[in-house]
């Protein structure tokens, strides 16, 4: 059982095992405890470590997780200039004013019978872009199960026929989408939820009576959102 003490490379001195062991054990214990306590920090770190897009410019990624590829036979867009020669035309996304938002929100109230999920986002918003594949999956999974979905971009209205439809097409998004066209965003923010300060992304789930039953500011947690949708779509 006896082991020869290792020599320290730098000094050639013999290290006493009895003196080393407790220090290593203490370091290991502290590290183990920190990992145990840190919970899901690893997930957040990996998400936040992704590169950010330059100011205000949406740059399509070569590949994103959960993204449906552009159908074969259609040219994939890799640049940002829709007017470039050979660029594939994109259908503009409809604009939505403050009254339009209010009418849309009323969709989740009687006599309508479908709950409504609303996501506010922008192409310049990194966590918005990151969460979009999850929202597309949720739309596909719940559309036939009684959920209305509206994605409202707060990009500059000029992006309604440029960056916004290009982004939606690249990801294969099929939910109803709009670009907000207002001179003052505050009435819209308050109409959606008076407790919301306007930070993006923001996701709200309205029940059949038009009440906010789930809200999340920042990148959505798909499991929690799906659980809320399951509940609200099963409530009669």
């Amino acid at each position, binding site marked *: 059982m006896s082991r020869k003490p290792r020599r320290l490379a730098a000094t050639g001195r013999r290290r006493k095992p009895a003196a080393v062991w407790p220090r290593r054990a203490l370091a*290991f*214990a*502290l590290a183990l*405890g920190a990992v145990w306590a840190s919970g899901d920090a690893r997930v957040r770190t990996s998400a936040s470590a992704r590169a950010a897009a330059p*100011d*205000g410019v949406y740059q399509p990624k070569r590949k994103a997780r959960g993204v449906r590829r552009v159908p074969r036979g259609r040219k994939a867009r890799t640049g940002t200039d829709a007017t470039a020669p050979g660029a594939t035309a994109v259908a503009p996304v409809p604009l939505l004013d403050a009254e339009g938002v209010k009418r849309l929100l009323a969709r989740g109230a009687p006599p309508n019978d479908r709950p409504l999920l609303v996501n506010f986002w922008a192409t310049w918003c990194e966590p918005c872009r990151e969460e979009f594949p999850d929202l597309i999956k949720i739309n596909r999974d719940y559309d036939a199960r009684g959920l209305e979905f509206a994605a409202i971009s707060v990009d500059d209205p000029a992006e309604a026929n440029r960056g916004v439809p290009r982004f939606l097409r690249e990801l294969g998004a099929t939910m109803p989408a709009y670009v907000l066209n207002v001179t003052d*965003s505050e009435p819209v*923010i308050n109409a959606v939820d008076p407790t919301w300060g306007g930070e993006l992304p923001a996701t709200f789930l309205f029940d059949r009576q038009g009440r906010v039953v789930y809200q999340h*500011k920042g990148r959505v947690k798909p499991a929690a959102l799906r659980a809320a949708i399951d509940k609200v779509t099963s409530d009669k």
Partner: protein
Amino acid sequence: MNRLHASGLTLVLALAFASGALFVPARAGAADTTAPVAIGATVEDFTLPDADGRAHTLASLKGKAGTVLIFIATRCPVSNAYNERMEKLYQDYKARGFNVVGINANVSEPATEVKEHAAAKGLTFTILKDNGNRVADRLGAERTPEAYVLDAAGRLVYHGRIDNAQNATNVTASELRDALDALLAGKPVAKTEAKAFGCSIKRAS
């Protein structure tokens, strides 16, 4: 020897749980957001480092007439749309007794980036780095840009947007400047809170 290893393993596990227990309350404490500072309430003093690591207290940065704290970002296009307006605000009001202080609470934007960004964008007011977003949590800041105006006594008199339009040519309401002008005129601030879209603050926890 085996007994020694067994007791050692027990010690390791015990220490692991003990150290974990030390970390957990700190994390839980950070997650427990106390009520944000309300309009009319005094903002307690705090100490934060600038991008060079020099510590500043809020008290040391207070202006004679009041103080403007603005949560800003280096990568947020909304915050960047306001760079010139924030610098102009600082220049316009410093001679009238107000100090403007930027606070970067984004965990994704390190101090070196904050320093480089300020130099590149011509931001000459003090910018603090809120590592761990302690001050953002205390003030209830959620987005960038988001402004807080304190009067000469340190009471919060305005909270919210700088103005109503990211595009400076479309501005029709400037609530932040209105609040400073009201303080200078000795009048109550007409609109104490105003909202606008912004980037969510990327918190450390």
